[in-house]
């Protein structure tokens, strides 16, 4: 064995350059997706330029758009973390929406039952209740997984459907708002509302989640718990033989995920709707999964990817009103962007392979 001097890792410059080069195919992928969608929109007789202006500029053209984007970014980030963290331990949490609904339930229960409490008491109580309810709901799946080996995909999918019924029951029977035309609860007490800042107002859940995302990324990289999580995901057997309680780690990852999704529900209640309503979970679950996967489970990347998706979602929503392009194009656009994003990985690999072949030859 010849001893060569070995670097701990590539230099900062090299890593930055690699990241820059890696970004190019991603940008290309998004462009190609837009071109394909532009062709379809044009074929349907609408103006693609107008449509895309709406998609891309909506978030940036004024503060309103930015606030909306950030409000969307909050649950997207939390649900992406709720998917990515158990994924780190090799577990698939498909229960984000159920956990979020339960989180909203916990929050709204506090907000309605204790509506006369002042903010300093009620708001923390409401958040804690949301987090706890989400964690508890995920805990059911974790318990079934650990104790009975029930596959977590199965249990989380089924529990989502149970949570829809719970929401329906609470919003249309227990705390239903008789005037609302949908399944909506009455409003929580003013003390349960997240303070808002600026104009147009942004709820401070955004700041809370930004701090949380930084903490999560830092914790995942630096902490023992983060390392154990990764170890379990990479090789459960080896982790176990090296003193890691793999079952406990997996269970904890699910519970933390549930807590985060529950927090998303609580923030939607306290910051955005001030009540719970049918459909509060929106399509955050699927978008969260997608964000988690595009970020390749890196908690550091999650908030950034989530921001990109939030821009897309907010912009796409107004695409129809501005250009008349049918609303389905939004789904198609998102699907294509995803596909091409992944394809860009393949292109990068091919290019790298060709380069190294040339170098080797």
């Amino acid at each position, binding site marked *: 064995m010849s001893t060569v001097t070995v670097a701990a890792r590539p230099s900062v410059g090299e890593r930055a350059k690699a990241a820059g080069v890696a970004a190019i195919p991603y940008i290309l992928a998004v462009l190609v997706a837009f071109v394909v969608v532009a062709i379809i929109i044009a074929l349907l007789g609408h103006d693609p330029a107008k449509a895309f202006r709406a998609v891309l500029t909506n978030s940036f053209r004024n503060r309103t758009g930015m606030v909306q984007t950030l409000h969307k970014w909050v649950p997207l980030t939390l649900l992406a973390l709720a998917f990515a963290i158990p994924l780190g331990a090799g577990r698939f949490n498909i229960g984000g929406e159920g956990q979020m609904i339960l989180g909203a339930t916990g929050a709204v229960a506090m907000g309605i039952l204790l509506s006369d409490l002042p903010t300093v008491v009620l708001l923390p109580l409401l958040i804690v209740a949301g987090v706890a309810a989400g964690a508890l709901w995920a805990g059911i799946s974790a318990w079934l997984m650990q104790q009975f080996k029930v596959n977590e995909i199965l249990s989380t999918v089924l529990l989502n459907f149970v949570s829809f019924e719970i929401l329906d029951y609470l919003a249309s029977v227990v705390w239903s708002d008789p005037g609302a035309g949908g399944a909506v609860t009455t409003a929580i007490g003013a003390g349960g509302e997240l303070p808002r800042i600026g104009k147009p107002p942004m709820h401070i859940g955004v700041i809370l989640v930004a701090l949380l995302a930084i903490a999560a990324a830092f914790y995942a990289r630096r902490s023992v718990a983060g390392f154990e999580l990764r170890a379990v995901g990479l090789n459960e057997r080896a982790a176990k033989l090296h003193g890691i309680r793999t079952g406990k780690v997996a269970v904890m990852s699910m519970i933390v995920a549930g807590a985060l999704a529950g927090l998303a529900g609580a923030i939607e209640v306290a910051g955005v709707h001030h009540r719970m309503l049918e459909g509060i979970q929106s399509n955050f679950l699927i978008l969260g999964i997608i964000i988690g996967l595009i970020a390749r489970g890196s908690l550091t990347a999650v908030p950034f990817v989530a921001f990109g998706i939030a821009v897309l979602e907010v912009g796409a929503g107004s695409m129809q009103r501005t250009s008349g392009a049918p609303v389905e194009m939004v789904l198609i656009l998102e699907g294509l962007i995803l596909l091409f994003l992944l394809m860009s990985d393949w292109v990068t690999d091919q290019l790298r392979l060709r380069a190294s*072949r040339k170098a080797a030859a």
Partner: protein
Amino acid sequence: MSAPDAAPGGAAPPLLRMRGIRKTFGPVVALKDVDFTVGPREVHGLLGGNGAGKTTLMNVLYGLYAPDAGTIEIDGAPVVIASPKDAIAAGVGMVHQTFLQVDVFTVAENVVLGTDTSGVDVNGRIRELSERFGLAVDPAARIGDLPVGVRQRVEILKALYRGAKILVLDEPTTNLTPQEVDALFGSMRAIVDEGMSVVLITHKIRETMAACDRMTIMRDGAWIATVDAADTSPEDLAARMVGAAPASDETADVALGGTEIGDATLDVPEVTGPVRVVGSRLTVPGTGGKAVVEDVSIELCEGEILGIAGVAGNGQVELAETLTGCRPAHGSLTLDGTELVGRPTEAWLRAGVVYVPEDRQRDGILPGADITENLVLGAHRTRAKAGLIDWGRARREAVEAISEFAVKTPSAATACGQLSGGNIQRVILARAFAHNPKMLLLHNPTRGLDIASTQFVYDRIRAAAAGGCSVIVISEDLDEVIALADRIRVAYSGRLVGDFARGHADPYELGRLMTGVSGAA
């Protein structure tokens, strides 16, 4: 030494001729225009150190790797092998270094998988083949439940069932007991007698000399030589494998596999330090009443090396996991007087019990994590401050460990799974020694390693023992146990039998214990 394409007997075309095979993996040139020729009815040894390109060459032949350049001829006719399907059709069969079997299928299903079974008496054919070549198997057994030796036979049957003319065996003996090796070589002879040829990949020169008619030596992806068994000697082969520098005495000793057991080691003084490890009546209940580890008691002094020999599948993995706290058990085990049984694995680790498992990829490392992270694994709790790991320090220490253990890697940030088996083992050992073990248990520590790496591992083990660590070496390689151990015991059917001091172990007696013929405890 003869030219690579010279077939014995001259006129008849060789059975297999590979010419100018080149293969690159990214920047790595694995095969540099390699020529390889196998004659009819011969056992052809393919020798070389770790990463020499043996497996790669045979994977090219078997259609698993697409070569960048080169041609293949079988029976004098050029063939294009783009996939294993083509290889099978051309009469190539291969037993891979790691078995390629579907665990949930039966033996019969694994054997016939991919063939047309309509109108075929599958079990009959399997039985017929296993009788003819001495490869006893139960066609109805589930593969996942079988011991390695039997799975090995199934792999060979798979190739024979498809009518292979050339059978490639990639390091087939690493998992086998001497008895099984003998049986395998017997089967190989039977195969050659039926008109086929065998390519035998191995590191073990003694085996090569015993079993092969001719051999090809590779080094660093290049063909070095092809020689007749009659024209060479073990020393010559070892020198060619290792390269220009002549093999040191010790290296050659490892390479030759300690043929003369015990003689040179009798003068080593017997270890008599204070007792460090006391295990008593350790039992692990299994499913179906039979305990997987039964009533095992051991005692080790400081600096003592206990060797546990045995045929694979006699509860060694379970025993290893029991003795290192990875598996709940009844009974007692104390280390320096502290009782450990019943406590979590982490407590054992903290107490200084370190385990080097046999299956490196599966149990030893996090393949997707980098070397630094793998070196931290297991120590991550003890070394963390306030629940945080100091990765800066870990990286610095990793660089040191890499140079101390001579791990061949581009950087400490390389994924551990990318390393070769020998280098993975070096990382695992570096980690094990960084724990300052008081008790070190190694299971098959040199399986699949080349001569240099094996020597390295032996040196390290001896150094640890010299430093006061109590060492247990569980190995299916009897030579290894005899070479290393101060005392030898034998694992048989979940129990420990026999107890021999260094130099007093009679290999035949050991062999009898290993196969359960003699029941002495």
